[in-house]
């Protein structure tokens, strides 16, 4: 079971509300796509939900308890967080990078138990990087690194996965692969929250859509009912055309709002 609630969450920087009075409840089985224009406050809201940033006002509840009441390692075991554009700072191998996802499960010293090595291998296999397992992570392409990081986040088998733009930089095949995997995780009973700019993929795979604009949550609900042409037109300020949102055949298309002659 996992449930995440935000109650009147506001983050204020230099007198400006970057996240403005956001209230929402998400629970297991949902794949929530967080969408909105650049600078809408998506990443900040994700950090707050992940318990990494304390909001100036409001509170985040995780499974009914304030996220601040959790022990750091305890929280790390039940929710995984992937920030935007994650990077490897040392040229460690893909295998060791993925194994770092098990950090909250490990004792203070010592190596990986055999059972954990098997989990690492399975996670690498899952993202299609088995032939790269010994390659230094710093030499991977952007898309390969993104997949390695996803494996890193999933190796600990968290109940909740939060990923900030997990599809950025992926080629079509791996973008479809990854977003499909996120949906399957939700179908398997986990809560998945991801900010997504690829709206067609969001329309096809997410169960719920949360829309942010200028720090405010302007819409939140099941994808089929929420993701409409009118909403996108309003939020992104471009003429949008949404067909069959919430189905595997959904398409989102944009045209300039004032077509040039």
């Amino acid at each position, binding site marked *: 079971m996992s449930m995440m609630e935000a109650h009147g969450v506001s983050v204020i920087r230099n007198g400006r509300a970057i996240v403005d009075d956001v209230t929402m409840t998400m629970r297991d089985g949902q794949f929530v796509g967080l969408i909105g224009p650049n600078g809408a406050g998506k990443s900040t809201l994700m950090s707050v939900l992940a318990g990494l940033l304390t909001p100036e006002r409001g509170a985040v509840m995780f499974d009914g308890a304030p996220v601040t009441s959790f022990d*750091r390692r305890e929280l*790390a075991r039940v929710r995984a967080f992937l920030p935007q554009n994650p990077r*490897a700072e*040392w040229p*460690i191998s893909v295998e060791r990078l993925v194994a770092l996802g098990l*950090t*909250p499960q490990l004792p203070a010293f010592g190596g990986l138990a055999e059972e954990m090595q098997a989990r690492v291998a399975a996670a690498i296999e899952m993202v299609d990087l088995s032939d790269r397992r010994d390659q230094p992570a710093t030499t991977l392409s952007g898309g390969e690194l993104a997949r390695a990081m996803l494996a890193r986040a999933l190796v600990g088998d968290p109940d909740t996965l939060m990923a900030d733009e997990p599809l950025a930089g992926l080629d079509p095949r791996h973008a479809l692969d990854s977003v499909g995997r996120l949906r399957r995780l939700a179908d398997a009973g986990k809560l998945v929250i991801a900010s997504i700019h690829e709206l067609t993929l969001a329309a096809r795979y997410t169960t719920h859509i949360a829309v942010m604009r200028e720090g405010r949550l302007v819409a939140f609900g099941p994808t089929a009912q929420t993701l409409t042409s009118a909403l996108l037109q309003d939020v992104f300020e471009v003429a949008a055309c949404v067909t069959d949102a919430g189905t595997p055949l959904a398409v989102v298309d944009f045209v300039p709002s004032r077509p040039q002659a």
Partner: protein
Amino acid sequence: MVGRRLWPILAAVLLVVCVLLSLGTGRVWLNPAVLVDGVFAPKPNLAWLILAELRVPRTILGLMVGATLGLSGAALQGLLRNPLAEPGLLGVSPGAALGAVIAIYFGLSGMLTLATPILGIVGAMAAAWLTLMIGRGGTLTMILAGSAVSGLMLAGVSLALNFAPNPYAAYEITTWLLGSLADRDWGQVTLAAPFILVGWLCLILTVRDIDALTLGEAQAESLGVNIARTRFLALAGTALSVGAATAVTGAIGFIGLLAPHLVRPFVGHQPSRVLLPAAVFGAILLVFADVATRVIPTSQEVKLGVLTSLVGTPFFFWLVAKLRRMSP
């Protein structure tokens, strides 16, 4: 890789060789057999006295100080994810130097032999505390704060030299600043050892955290790492161990920078796996350098800190060349 398995053996051999050389080398050349004899039946002969009262403490101090520099360099490079991180960068060694220089300047060292190391440790702690307080914001702020604190401490040292009451005091300060293991005794070893051991413990407690930091601060925090605690442990550990080491031996450069880089490619670059080998190779490098100061035939003994800087600088050029190759 076969090379990876051979490294521990190579390290052990080098360690034994450097220790034996350090025990045997000097103005009087000794046979290692004297040590073995002496251990079983201590004899009050000259050879045994030289060993027990001069060479053994000097060697132990060399091993401890070298290991300290290597370990703290590795921990700080892991914490800051910066190839140039070393104890001097965060102001710890300059702080220790200033503390010791104050002891010499005010003649406290004349009244109490241990005044120099004690004030050195105090200086290192003060510098580390300042860096931690000013540089709370993040990695870059911490590096900048460390540079500022270093600058402040070195300015204090210069001021002491400037106002030195007589040429002899200035000479004493300069000599001390050059760094040396010569004429150190058991008193200094036993004074430094507890601080160094507690410092090592703090540094070793950061292993999981510096590994997780490979993923950047946001991911490390999401994995349960308390970065403020990690910074505190790394800095406190460095202040205690490097502070005590510098306070006893003077400033010895480059070992802390060099040792981690030397071993990193052989352990797959994972920060936690760099710690122990960096400590071992730091010890080996320092003891070899100390032996070299005794062997190099100069009218005055080459100071250890001077030698490590001389040998270490070409390494700096190599590091620059390597980084230039790696960046696009």
